[in-house]
C-alpha cells in the first residue's frame, strides 16, 4: 500500500475536523474523496501535504510508519498537492511560479533562461498549450489558466502521490478532458492520485475507488463501479435526497422586483422579474458571475439599466440605497463580508441599526433577543464573540441582522456553504418562513439539488447572463447541467 492513514484525528480548538479516519491509497489508482463542505476532506489532504499535523493516529508510507512534519517532508515523499484556492504568487511569471521554491540556479543566481525553457517544455509535454506564454505574469491570466499553471507546477516534479482538490472548478470541458487524459497516464505510471470533486458524474468516469467523508468520519470506501450515484449521494448526506429539501409553498403575489437590461463589466444584460412569496433560484457554475449580479443589485458594483421595486424605478448606487428600497443581501463570504468577526453576537445583530452611530441599549437588547429567539441562534449570550459560533449559527446571525428591517427582497448568496447538515436544514426553514411572510427571495446556490428543489422558478446563469428561465419542476438536473456547462 502506497499510503495508509490509520485512525487519524485532527482537532481545531473544540471542533473535531477528522475523527479516527482510515484511508488508503494504492500506487496506480485514482481514489476519489467525497463529502459535503466541512466534511474533512481539506483537512485530510493538508495532513498529507505537511500543512497540518494529526493529533492522533498514524500514517504509513509503503507500510513504514512516517511523520510528515512540513511541506518539505511531503515533497521528499513525492506528495504533491494542487490546492483548491489558487496558491500562486501573482506578481511572478508562469515559469517563475512553476519553479517557485526550487529555482534553477547558476553560480547562486537565477537561471531564468533555463527556467523559461523548461517551463515551455513542461507545458508542451503536458499538452496544455492553453497555458500560453510562460513569461506572462500570473495576475494577468484568467482563473482557468491560473488553474492550469497550478496543475503544471504539481506535475513538474515526479510525483508519487498527487492530490487534486477540485481541479476542474474553473476549467472548460476541453481542459477538463485534457486533465483526465494526463491523470490516466500518471495512473498507468504508478502514481497514486487522490481526487476531490463535487461533480459526481466526473468522479464516476474517472475514479477507481471512492471514499466518502461526512462530518469528519469516514463513511466508507467502495469501488467506483459498484457505487450508484443515488447511493453515493446517500452516503454523503446521510439520508434520502427527497426528504432533504422541503420546497417552500408557492404563494406568488405582486411583482416585487423588476430588473431590465442590467449591465456592467460582470453583468451582461440581465432582465428578470421576482414576485412576492416566491423563490427565484440562480443556478450556475462557480465563476458564472452570480455573486457579481447580487452585488450589483445591492449597489456594491455600479451598473446601467433599470431596477424597479414595487413597479417604481429606484436608483441604487450604494448599499444604503438598496436597503432603503427594501433589498438586503446575505453575502457569499460571511466571514469577510457578512460579519464583524472581531466583535460580539449582539454587536453584529444591532449593526444595521447603528448607522447614526448609536443604538440605545434597551432597543438593542430587544433586537438581539428577538433575533436569537426567532432564529434559534445557539449562543451563551449577546456578548459571545461571533468568531466562536459554529458556521451555521454565524450564517443565522447574518440573515437575522437584516430581518428586523422587514425587507421586501431577500438575496441569499450561497447561504449553505460551509455549514453543517443541521444548520443547512435550519437555513431551509428560514427561507420557507421568509416566503410565508410574503418576502421575495432570490437564491444563489452552486449546490444543484438545493437550488432546484428550493426555488419555484429557476434562472440558469452563465457568463454573466440568464441563458434560460423555467419553472423548477419543468426541468431535470441533467438538463440544467447540460445547459450550464455548454460552451
Amino acid at each position: 500500500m502506497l499510503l495508509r492513514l490509520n485512525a487519524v484525528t485532527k482537532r481545531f480548538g473544540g471542533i473535531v475536523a477528522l475523527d479516527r479516519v482510515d484511508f488508503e491509497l494504492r500506487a496506480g489508482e485514482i481514489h476519489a474523496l467525497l463529502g459535503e463542505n466541512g466534511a474533512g476532506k481539506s483537512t485530510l489532504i493538508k495532513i498529507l501535504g505537511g500543512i497540518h499535523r494529526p493529533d492522533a493516529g498514524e500514517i504509513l508510507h509503503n507500510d513504514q510508519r512516517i511523520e510528515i512534519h512540513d511541506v518539505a517532508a511531503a515533497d521528499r515523499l513525492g506528495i504533491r498537492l494542487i490546492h483548491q484556492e489558487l496558491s500562486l504568487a501573482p506578481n511572478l511569471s508562469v515559469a517563475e511560479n512553476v519553479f517557485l521554491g526550487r529555482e534553477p540556479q547558476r553560480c547562486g543566481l537565477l537561471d531564468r533562461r533555463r527556467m523559461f525553457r523548461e517551463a515551455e517544455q513542461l507545458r508542451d509535454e503536458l499538452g496544455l498549450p492553453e497555458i500560453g506564454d510562460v513569461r506572462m505574469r500570473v495576475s494577468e491570466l484568467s482563473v482557468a489558466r491560473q488553474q492550469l499553471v497550478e496543475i503544471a507546477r504539481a506535475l513538474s516534479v515526479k510525483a508519487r502521490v498527487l492530490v487534486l482538490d477540485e481541479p476542474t472548478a474553473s476549467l472548460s470541458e476541453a481542459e477538463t478532458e485534457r486533465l483526465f487524459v494526463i491523470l490516466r497516464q500518471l495512473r498507468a505510471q504508478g502514481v497514486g492520485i487522490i481526487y476531490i470533486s463535487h461533480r459526481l458524474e466526473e468522479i464516476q468516469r474517472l475514479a477507481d475507488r471512492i471514499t466518502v467523508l461526512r462530518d469528519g468520519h469516514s463513511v466508507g470506501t467502495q469501488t467506483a463501479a459498484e457505487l450508484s450515484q443515488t447511493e453515493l449521494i446517500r452516503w454523503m448526506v446521510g439520508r434520502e435526497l427527497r426528504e432533504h429539501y422541503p420546497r417552500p409553498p408557492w404563494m406568488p403575489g405582486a411583482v416585487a422586483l423588476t430588473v431590465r437590461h442590467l449591465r456592467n463589466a460582470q453583468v451582461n444584460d440581465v432582465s428578470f422579474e421576482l414576485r412576492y412569496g416566491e423563490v427565484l433560484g440562480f443556478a450556475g457554475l462557480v465563476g458564472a458571475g452570480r455573486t457579481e449580479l447580487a452585488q450589483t443589485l445591492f449597489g456594491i458594483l455600479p451598473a446601467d439599466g433599470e431596477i424597479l421595486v414595487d413597479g417604481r424605478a429606484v436608483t441604487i448606487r450604494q448599499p444604503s440605497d438598496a436597503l432603503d428600497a427594501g433589498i438586503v443581501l446575505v453575502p457569499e463570504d460571511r466571514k469577510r463580508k457578512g460579519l464583524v468577526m472581531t466583535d460580539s453576537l449582539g454587536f453584529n445583530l444591532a449593526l444595521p441599526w447603528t448607522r447614526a452611530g448609536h443604538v440605545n441599549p434597551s432597543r438593542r437588547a430587544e433586537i438581539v433577543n428577538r433575533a436569537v429567539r426567532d432564529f434559534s441562534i445557539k449562543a451563551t449570550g449577546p456578548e459571545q464573540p461571533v468568531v466562536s459560533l459554529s458556521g451555521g449559527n454565524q450564517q443565522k446571525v447574518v440573515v437575522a441582522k437584516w430581518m428586523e428591517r422587514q425587507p421586501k427582497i431577500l438575496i441569499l448568496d450561497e447561504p449553505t456553504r460551509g455549514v453543517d447538515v443541521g444548520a443547512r436544514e435550519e437555513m431551509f426553514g428560514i427561507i420557507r418562513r421568509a416566503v410565508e411572510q410574503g418576502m421575495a427571495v432570490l437564491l444563489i446556490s452552486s449546490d444543484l439539488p438545493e437550488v432546484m428543489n428550493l426555488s419555484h422558478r429557476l434562472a440558469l446563469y452563465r457568463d454573466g447572463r440568464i441563458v434560460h428561465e423555467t419553472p423548477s419542476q419543468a426541468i431535470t438536473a441533467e438538463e440544467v447541467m447540460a445547459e450550464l456547462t455548454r460552451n
Partner: protein
Amino acid sequence: MKTLRQLLPLLIAIVLLVAFFAFFVPGGRFLTVSNLLDLTQQISINAILAFGMTLAILIGGIDLSVGAVVALAGTVAVAVLPHAGWAGAAVAGMGTAAAFGLVNGTCAAKTRMPPFIITLATMLVARGTALRFNEGRPLPVPDSETVFLNLGNARLFGVVPVPALIMLGAFALTALLLHRTAFGQHLYAIGGNREAARYVGIPLARRETTVYVLCSLLAGLAGLIHSSQLYSAEPAAGQGFELNAIAAVVVGGTSFTGGIGTMPGTLIGAVIIGILDKGLNQAGVHFSLQYIIKGLVILGAVWLDVRRRK
C-alpha cells in the same frame, strides 16, 4: 524591457523636474555638473535606506527603526573608533545594526505582532540607546581618522563622491539579490501570496528574518556614512529618515500591500525625492512650502501608480 516600460513614467518625471528646476533655480545653478554630483552625494543615504525598506515593504512588512539605527550605529562606531580603528568601528556599528535587524526579524517571523509595532518599539529602544552614549552629546570623529572621514566626504579622482559609489554598490547588490536570485523570487511570493509561499515550502521565518537583518545592515552602513559626513556621531541624527525612505520606495512604485516593486524603481524614487529637496531649496522656496509640495508630490505619484495598475 518590461521593467523599463514600467519605469518610464518615473524617468519622465525626473526629466520634467530637472527641466523645471533648471529653469527656476536662479543663475542656472541647478543644472551644473558639480551641483548634480552634490545631489548624488545627498541622496545616497536615503537611497541606501530605501533599498532595505523596499525589501521589507515587498514582503508586506515595514521597518520604522532604520532612522534610529542610523544614529545608534554611527554612535557605536565613533565610540569604538579611537580604540579599534576604522575597521573595528565599522564592524561594531554594523554589528549593532544587525542585532536590531535580528530582533525585528525574529519578532516579525515568530510572533504575530505587526512589523509596524515591532519596529516602532525597536526604534525607541535604538534611539534611547544612542542617547545613553556620552549623555546625548555628539561624539566628534578625531581628525586623524582619515579612512573613516573619507567614507562620507572623499571624492574618487576628486570628482565622484564616495557615498554615491557606496550607494551604487548597495543598489547593485540589492537589485541582484531581488531580481536575480531565488531569494528574491521568494520575497515576491511571500508578499504576493503568503499562504502560497508557505505551501510550496519556502522557509518563511528564515526569509523574513533575513530581510529585516539586511534592512538594518543597510541602515548601519548609512549610519557610518552619516557620522562621517557630520564629522561626529549625533545621537539625535536620523530623525524621520525612515519616512523619507518610505517615500522613496512608494514613489518608486512599490506597493504597500506587498509583492509588487522593483529596486530600480526605488532608486529612481530616491532620486526624485532628492531632486525635489535640493531643487526647492535652491529655488529659494520657503521650507514650510517645501514640506507641502513634497507631500503633494508623494500623494500624486502614488495615486497615479495605483490608477495605472487598475
